[in-house]
């Protein structure tokens, strides 16, 4: 009995994150050994995952800031678009770092517009967000036509930006890569993942990743963060205790815009090196999905961004990896089924098993997975997470609700 309780304690403690991550890695490792696919946990896949995850992480954290303060930010996509354009143009003009800064400022301006419309004027938050998306799309297109052709680009693409320097951690990186190529169970996979993060990595990646610990620290350890969260949970109570809810929301939405803008600039300046129209491809919306997936918590948003980024990376790289990953889906389905059996929730267990067997059948019947499915996979995961966990999700109580000072 006591061991059962101890296991339960561990499962409830924050350490369960490491446990889950470790188990997932072990499962992927086994799958690679069995199927011979070895690009799932390679340094290349890990580096690509990082590059695809960062824009999503930035958008997700942007969504988190805004929603924690009580305002839903559908305008994230537009703020990212502003970021891609500002980053590329000012990057081309004055260097990549200036581009990043300009993107953040552009995001802040878009954020302040959203704040003005929703907080001050009281327009419906979804309507204001959509307006910002449309406005961003139209404005950037107009500006592209004015500025890019004379500078050597065309109406859809900007000239190239000077790249941001890369870094590789000396000694550690080559040793990890050689360890990775030995294909030991688990150890090589772990080595590959870490090697991918510290080999030929952009300084911009490192800098933007700091947004995660900073967000956690500000929102949960500081006075300002507490007030941001209460503005989203109970603005009336906050106001009654002397918190200036309007101002707090303005700042939080500006931070949201800055983060989304930086995420956009990362795509244009770091990932592709220039601006392409429609480059964000809905990543702002995926960022919103990571907020829900992550239960409005920064580490959850991070996990969501990595999951979505990982599937993006896999799709681009090698389809046999994707095919092998199907086995991981089967494993998850079996684990869910076992847990639900233990909880005596037979309906869910059976559904889970049936889904698992269908995927398993597909794994043996087909050699490749269509790209479309891979693209859709993260969205499907979000839907499943929402379906199964919706009762345990804790969105900020007043996110999305209009708030007028002095009214209850």
């Amino acid at each position, binding site marked *: 009995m006591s061991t059962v309780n101890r296991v339960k304690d561990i499962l409830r403690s924050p350490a369960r994150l490491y446990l889950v991550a470790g188990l997932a890695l072990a499962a992927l490792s086994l799958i690679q050994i069995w199927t011979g696919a070895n690009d799932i946990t390679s340094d290349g896949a890990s580096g690509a995952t990082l590059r695809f995850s960062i824009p999503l992480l930035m958008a997700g954290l942007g969504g988190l800031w805004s929603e924690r303060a009580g305002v839903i930010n559908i305008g994230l996509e537009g703020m990212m678009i502003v970021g891609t354009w500002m980053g590329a143009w000012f990057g081309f003009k004055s260097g990549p770092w200036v581009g990043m800064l300009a993107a953040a400022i552009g995001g802040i301006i878009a954020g302040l517009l959203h704040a003005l419309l929703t907080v001050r004027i009281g327009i419906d938050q979804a309507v204001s967000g959509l307006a910002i998306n449309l406005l961003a799309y139209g404005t950037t297109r107009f500006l592209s036509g004015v500025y890019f052709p004379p500078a050597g680009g065309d109406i859809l693409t900007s000239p190239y930006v000077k790249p941001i320097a890369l870094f590789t951690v000396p000694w550690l990186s080559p040793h990890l890569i050689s360890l990775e190529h030995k294909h030991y169970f688990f150890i090589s996979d772990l080595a590959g993942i870490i090697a991918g993060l510290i080999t030929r990595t952009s300084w911009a990646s490192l800098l933007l990743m700091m947004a995660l610990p900073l967000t956690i620290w500000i929102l949960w*350890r*500081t*006075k*300002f963060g*507490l*007030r941001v*969260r*209460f503005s989203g*949970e*109970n603005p*009336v*109570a*906050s106001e*009654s*205790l*002397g*918190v200036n809810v309007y101002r707090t929301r303005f700042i939080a939405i500006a931070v949201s815009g800055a983060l989304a803008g930086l995420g956009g600039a990362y795509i244009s300046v770091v990932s592709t090196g220039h601006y392409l129209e429609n480059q964000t491809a809905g990543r702002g919306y995926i960022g919103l999905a990571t907020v829900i997936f992550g239960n409005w918590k920064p580490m959850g948003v991070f996990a969501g961004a990595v999951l979505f980024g990982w599937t993006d990376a896999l799709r681009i790289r090698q389809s046999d990896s994707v095919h092998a990953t199907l086995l991981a889906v089967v494993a998850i389905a079996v684990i869910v089924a076992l847990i639900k059996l233990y909880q005596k929730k037979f309906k869910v267990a059976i559904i889970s098993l049936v889904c698992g067997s269908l995927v398993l059948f597909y794994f043996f019947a087909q050699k490749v997975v269509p790209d479309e499915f891979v693209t859709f996979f993260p969205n499907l995961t979000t839907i499943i997470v929402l379906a199964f966990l919706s009762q345990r999700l*804790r969105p*900020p*109580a007043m996110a999305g609700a209009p708030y007028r000072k002095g009214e*209850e």
Partner: protein
Amino acid sequence: MTKVIEIIGIGKKYPGVVANDNVNISIEGGSIHAIIGENGAGKSTLMKILFGLVKPDSGSIRVRGEELNLKSPQDAIAKGIGMVHQHFMLADNATVLENVILGSEPTGALGTIHYAAAREKLTEISQRYGLEIDPDQLVASLGVGERQRVEIAKVLFRGAEILILDEPTAVLVPQEVDELFSNLKGLTSNGLTIIFISHKLDEVLQIADDITVMRRGTTVANVHPKETSKKALAEYMIGGALPEPHPGESSRGSDKALKVEGVSFTDHDGRKVINELSLDIFSGEIVGLAGVEGNGQSELIELIMGLVKADSGSIEIVGLDASVATTRQIRDAGVGYIPQDRHRDGLLLGASLWENRVLGHQGTAPMADGLWVNKSAAKSDSERIVSEFDVRTPSINVAAHALSGGNQQKFIVGREMAGAPKVLIAAQPTRGVDVGAQAIIWNHLIEARRNGAAVLLVSADLDEIFKLSDRIAVIFRGEITNYLDPKKATPETLGMAMTGEKIA
């Protein structure tokens, strides 16, 4: 004893309304001073003035002899005046500690919160005043009584020495009221002063050291609880003799309008909350359902209204098989329903009164005209309710949330009485309303009975049960365990029956 607060000649006018006029109160330090009055008597305005939310037009307030000039609640807090709101100002998705410190966080460099210091201070407050709150619990997991103690802790954390409690017992069950009262005694024995706003006369007589009565915006009496009575207080409040309900002769018909037979119901958590329950109500009869809260009253109402379906057994309402009918069919068969939570189930707070009048009758004439809502009928009937039930409102076009609780309740009662219901389910019909509104609602319930309605009266107010019921049915653990005759039973026997004892 010294005077801690002196309120001298306070007046406040709003366009068209005199909210406060020549209000004079003096409050002694370390005492509990109750301010009572009907809804709309000006208590809330006075408290808003005291807490800095509203500026008075005339008069002055002195705290310990010093003239107050409050511009905001923050000023009031700085002067040691704290307010415990009737509707809790707490965030569910945050811990007790976070809720308490918000707005006056002890911080260090870069705005980092000193959680350890804050936790220590809160624990110390909790122990000194016996509040028994755990700083690290999530507010979502707390009960109503605990939430109120968190609200009190919030005020004490800010160093308040004068606490204003606005109708603190409105949301509490009797046991929680007792706990609150012992907490309040703990506060005053530590030298704090409490201003207790209420319209519940029993409670005021029990807890207060002094009582001030307000009527129509002004103070009409200052009395000692030992030198007065409930009846005298009520007469001060309404400015005349209180009309007593006179149920009169039995008007019980011969047909059973509501027949509940052997009904069982299991809730989400798998608890069998209604167990083989049977209950018949004849037309023209009021049956009072008495019981300690949580013994299946809410579930029985939901079963009768078709909001949930029974596991087994049958419910018949004027010939309709309600165990399979939809709520709409049940209502159309002539069932009126006064829900116990008027904000959650009784009204659309953001919609106008006349729109609220349509609710529940949207499918039948006169509210419906074919596919359309009959707006003129809804409006004229709303006007009728406003005048017959003395609903105090500027117009029938204002949103329901603009009305005070008692007036909202009168409007709901009026709506549910419309169209002469054959069965009326009245759950806590006078909860949170003042004595004047209570008398009006009681008279209308009696009138419905005289007109042949079968009334199921579910109430936690035993006085109400005794005054109105033809029969009292006692519900205990999902069963009707006793029937009592209100003319013969005493509150003591009813109390025993409610705890499960069999009374012959």
